[in-house]
């Protein structure tokens, strides 16, 4: 304790945060979130229980009615569940962000010489792990029920597409989390968006069975394209037009919502 620190007046400091520091801070924040997940594994309920339950439930509930048999329904339902669970996991991203911002620890982050967006980018990076878990578990459940993909490459690419699209879409819910006054409000609004989006899509039923006006909605629902892209990858092992549409759509979401979220966050933080 006898060594003297460099006096404040003699330090040369820069008033901006470098890109390298922003990345390093974001990775540290992601590490913090992974530690939090390890400390409270119940956070993972939505990405563990849901894929297991929903896969079993929907397969046996609708299998006979929609496709005549459970086996025949699996190629339709597995891609649907993949997209649905990943999207549900996105909601949690926004809600947890809101909860995090209300914690005392954010007070410290604000007075520290770190990139101001790191507390936002960190959790979003860490959540890739959650989407990965949800995706992997759905595949496992599907396999146990008898689902077989056309090619391993197609299945892997399908899984990666789900994770990528989920990460992109999570920025929408991150924005909701940032602007919502409480985490309950964030949860409520997110659910109100999520339900029509997942059920009024091609995720669970062939769209040809729907009335005309509903088909119109389903056909503009971005989830429909993601689900059919996954179906093509899993069932035929091919990359179709829907795949590229999904990628372009996801990138567009990022291009629009990342700046919006950052702006809203900087105003609050």
């Amino acid at each position, binding site marked *: 304790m006898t060594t003297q620190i*460099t*006096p404040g007046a003699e330090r040369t400091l*820069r008033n901006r945060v470098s890109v390298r520091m922003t990345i390093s801070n974001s990775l540290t924040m992601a590490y913090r979130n992974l530690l*939090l997940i390890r*400390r409270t594994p119940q956070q993972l309920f939505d990405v563990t229980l849901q894929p297991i339950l929903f896969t079993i439930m929907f397969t046996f509930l609708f299998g006979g009615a929609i496709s005549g048999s459970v086996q025949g329904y699996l190629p339709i339902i597995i891609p649907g569940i993949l997209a649905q669970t990943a999207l549900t996991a996105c909601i949690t991203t926004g809600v947890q962000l809101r909860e995090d911002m209300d914690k005392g620890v954010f007070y410290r982050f604000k007075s*520290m*010489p770190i990139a101001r967006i790191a507390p936002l980018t960190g959790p979003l990076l860490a959540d890739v792990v959650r989407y990965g878990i949800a995706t992997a578990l759905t595949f496992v459940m599907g396999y146990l029920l008898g689902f077989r993909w056309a090619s391993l490459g197609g299945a892997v690419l399908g899984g990666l597409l789900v994770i990528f699209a989920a990460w992109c879409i999570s920025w929408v819910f991150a924005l909701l989390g940032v602007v919502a006054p409480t985490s309950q409000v964030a949860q409520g609004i997110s659910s109100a968006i999520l339900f029509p989006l997942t059920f009024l899509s091609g995720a669970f039923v062939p769209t040809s069975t729907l009335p005309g006006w509903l088909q119109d909605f389903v056909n503009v629902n971005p989830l429909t394209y993601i689900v059919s892209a996954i179906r093509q990858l899993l069932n035929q092992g091919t990359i179709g037009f829907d795949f590229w549409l999904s990628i372009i759509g996801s990138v567009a979401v990022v291009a629009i919502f990342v700046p919006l979220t950052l702006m809203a966050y900087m105003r609050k933080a």
Partner: protein
Amino acid sequence: MTEQSSALAIEARGLVKIFGTKRAVDGVDLSVPVGSIYALLGPNGAGKTTIINMLTTLLKPDGGSAKVFRHDVLRETQVVRQLISLTGQSAAVDEKLSGHENLTVFAMLLGLGRSEANRRATELLDEFGLAGAANQTIEKYSGGMRRRLDLACSMIVQAPLIFLDEPTTGLDPRTRLQMWDIIRGLVSTGSTIVLTTQYLDEADQLADRVAVIDQGKIVAEDTPRNLKAAIGKVTLRMQLANENDVEEAARITGEVLGTRASVPDPRQVTAPLTNSEKVTDLLIALRGASIRLLSVSMQEPTLDEAFLALTEGTRQAEVTVRQ
């Protein structure tokens, strides 16, 4: 002029913060010399924390300006953040993480590598007597442990300017003394400390200068000694060897000092002292009358008295006076 301002860690002029219709901070000037302990003393709601929040870039002032080591807190935010550390009133740590994990994450954010951050975390936990609770989550920490961890988090890298918002509130006397030692140690190695406190004895014990704050304004600013001198009275207290002398002693004291002496108990004489030079005359006169004294003491006024006098008529009831 420039030399003088370079020796200041904080220079604030006319700071104002308005919440709704309330002027929480109402034109505050501060000059904190480098290497000093500076106390902001005031009752709850006086505006101490709001001042700290403006100086630490957490709140934008509605008026006035502030510089930290000559860097403007509004324009050079990121520079200022590299020069300060802040320990707030409530523990700003992750409740669900362990002490070691908290420290490691903060250390990594400050640019330490993974293994270096780990090492520093262990070191600080040892230093702050938390080694045994290193792997417990903060939820299981007691109030005192939380405060210590919070302070440890602010000490990962020792900042040139350290803000401590009520560092000893709610601590037991022993931990409070430890905290004072830590604060003195930080100053001896080159840091400047700004602390807020509601405890007059704390400001008295620690601070080089004290700003007394009431209703968003600085009502007095000086060294603790001068503040006390400006307000309080010194009391002379004499312990006699012989009870029979007490009346005679009181008479002589009254005569020499030109005041009324009182006899609080059969062997004691006390009197208010306005001119301390007269004590010599008094002692000579007492010896001349063959009155033997066991002890003579002068009681300084307490900062409590000074504080109450300064904020008189406002909200005395809210002042926490701790003995």
